[in-house]
């Protein structure tokens, strides 16, 4: 409202009056920066030569703020800012804790690397159809989902990145892409609708949408309010987003159709947002309900792990194989959610970080295999070991990482999860984690033997490399992505420590609540 000059209105009862420092802006910067750059790219849609570099500057700035945010959160606890100066829960709060900041940073790094890979992978027509603007807006949605502290706002960011992902999926307008995108769109809309229904129901029950406010009111409402229903609805909605069995069928139907960079981004990021939302709602908001649902979540996790990797064993298209491995990985994270203990949750969080990195790397690897070997199909790929030793080395380390063997990053989260399962006497979960790791080794070993080790038959027509551009940039990008994967494998202590902080932030939400409501009032 415009205040007439000379008239002083007391607004302290409704508005935040304390000045906001530059550090507080860290919580919103990873969302505002991609929106600004996405808007700029949209305005200058036809200056396609500059798209790549502008997007890289934007994503670089975003990653920079995310690093600063994570360091700040680790040092000082959760950081919160409420939009428009309105007091929470009336204003929309952005609240970053260690979990959100870690996921945001990892996704930012993945997006940055994908944007570099896209410089060579996305051609002029892809740029004309707006690859980079979509990428920026996708990242705005992803960061927003990880950093928001308001459950309806979470829904909005889900919409933002889902709509951007539609655009990225159909880039190129091929028939298979439209087919995949339709399935993806319809199934995602069903999940989003469930999410919205659950949120409407939650608002009717609690009268608030602020997650910190819900967390502190849940205890008092437990006796009378239908919290079980809410938790189950969220489990179904986010389980669908995360591609958990039996609502995972949309993922294999669509992830093999788009450009390889898009598939890498989706495989790396999108399912993890579902997992993040599950952790946030079920562990932080409805912990009692989660422990009632734990057996169900455990079975869902076991089936997702095992059936996902079995799907991978049955495929011959490398992109479909990796799609099923994404699903199997979601099962591993759900195992941590089913356990709900400190160790189990930090295992799940560490596995999510690992999974963002390796799944993106796997898809980029398959893009390189297609370029250098001429095909996505295991029936046609052969002899890559002789022609591309460097790619073979990368593929080997990556396969070990995904399967959870040293020196890759998959080992430690699985160690944590198995340890937590044994502590909780959940033998079935521990067995399933180990079995799925074993089957993943077989699935990726099959890819490795057929595509790399098998000699090309002399009579077979040599498949032509499809991209004549030099593969140096592709190798550089893959190697850059291998660095965190290997570091996470050989020197895991700092990462485990961060995951521990994130997990205890979920289990003991007092820090999160006091970041939003400093004096306990509001």
């Amino acid at each position, binding site marked *: 409202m415009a205040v007439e000059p000379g008239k002083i209105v007391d607004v302290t009862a409704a508005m935040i009056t304390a000045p906001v420092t530059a550090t507080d802006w860290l919580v919103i910067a990873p969302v505002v920066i991609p929106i600004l750059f996405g808007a700029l790219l949209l305005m200058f849609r036809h200056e396609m030569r500059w798209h790549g570099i502008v997007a890289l500057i934007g994503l670089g700035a975003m990653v920079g703020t995310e690093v600063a945010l994570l360091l700040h959160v680790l040092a000082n606890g959760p950081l919160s800012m409420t939009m*428009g*100066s309105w007091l929470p829960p009336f204003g929309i709060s952005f609240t970053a804790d260690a979990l959100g900041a870690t996921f945001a940073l990892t996704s930012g790094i993945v997006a940055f690397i994908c944007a570099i890979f896209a410089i060579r992978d996305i051609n002029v027509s892809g740029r004309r159809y707006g690859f980079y603007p979509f990428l920026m807006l996708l990242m705005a949605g992803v960061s927003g989902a990880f950093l928001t502290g308001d459950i309806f706002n979470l829904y909005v960011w889900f919409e933002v990145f889902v709509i951007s992902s539609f655009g990225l999926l159909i880039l190129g307008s091929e028939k298979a892409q439209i087919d995949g995108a339709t399935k993806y769109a319809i199934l995602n809309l069903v999940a989003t609708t469930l999410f919205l229904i659950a949120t409407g129901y939650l608002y009717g029950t609690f009268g608030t949408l602020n997650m910190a406010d819900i967390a502190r009111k849940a205890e008092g409402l437990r006796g009378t309010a239908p919290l079980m229903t809410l938790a189950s609805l969220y489990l179904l909605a986010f389980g669908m987003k995360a591609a958990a069995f039996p609502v995972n069928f949309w993922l294999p139907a669509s992830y093999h159709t788009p450009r390889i960079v898009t598939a890498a981004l989706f495989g790396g990021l999108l399912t993890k947002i579902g997992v993040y939302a599950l952790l946030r709602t079920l562990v932080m908001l409805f912990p009692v309900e989660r422990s009632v649902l734990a057996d169900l979540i455990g079975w869902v996790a076991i089936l997702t792990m095992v059936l996902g990797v079995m799907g991978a064993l049955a495929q011959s298209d490398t992109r479909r194989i990796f799609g099923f491995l994404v699903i199997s990985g979601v099962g591993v994270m759900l195992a941590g959610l089913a356990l709900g203990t400190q160790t189990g949750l930090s295992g799940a969080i560490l596995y999510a970080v690992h999974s963002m990195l390796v799944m993106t790397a796997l898809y980029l690897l398959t893009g390189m295999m297609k370029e250098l070997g001429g095909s996505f199909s295991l029936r046609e790929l052969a002899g890559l070991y002789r022609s591309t030793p460097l790619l073979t080395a990368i593929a080997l380390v990556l396969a070990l990482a995904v399967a959870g063997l040293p020196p890759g990053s998959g080992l430690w989260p699985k160690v944590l999860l198995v340890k937590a399962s044994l502590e909780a006497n959940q033998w079935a979960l521990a067995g399933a984690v180990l079995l799925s790791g074993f089957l993943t080794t077989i699935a990726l070993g099959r890819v490795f033997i057929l595509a790399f080790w098998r000699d090309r038959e002399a009579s077979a027509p040599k498949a032509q490399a499809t991209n004549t551009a030099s593969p140096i940039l592709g190798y550089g990008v893959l190697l850059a992505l291998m660095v965190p994967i290997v570091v996470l494998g050989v020197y895991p202590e700092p990462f485990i420590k961060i995951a521990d902080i994130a997990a205890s932030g979920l289990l003991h939400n007092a820090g999160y609540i006091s970041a939003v409501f400093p004096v306990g009032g509001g």
Partner: protein
Amino acid sequence: MRTLIFRTAAPYLTSLMLLFSVFVLLRGHNEPGGGFIGGLIAASAFAIYGIAFGVPEVRRSMYFHPMAISGFGLFLAALSGLLSYVFHVPFLTGIWTSPSLFGITVDLSTVMFFDIGVYLVVVGSITSIALALEEREDG
């Protein structure tokens, strides 16, 4: 729809609707209206113009590509929130100023620029959808 009556009426209708959309946009702060509804009215004005004279004519008279317009709207909306940084208040806080122009006090605020941004996003995106659909019909 190239009838004489419609083609004669369309330019008047379009300009009236565009004027009205700006009125609705500015009225929106304290009364019913605002950027979203104003943008829809403006987009329908462009659609009417397109039905009467064809899509190329609309694109020529709009000068900027509709997508670029919505990009600018998004940019403007985000910038109006960023102005809070300078004043040490949280993102998207409304900041007001009341300069006096020729003896008339004009209340300007970041809220208004945000709303203009919304208006442009809606005009740009809905117009580009409408034009793409009309083009398909012509071709």
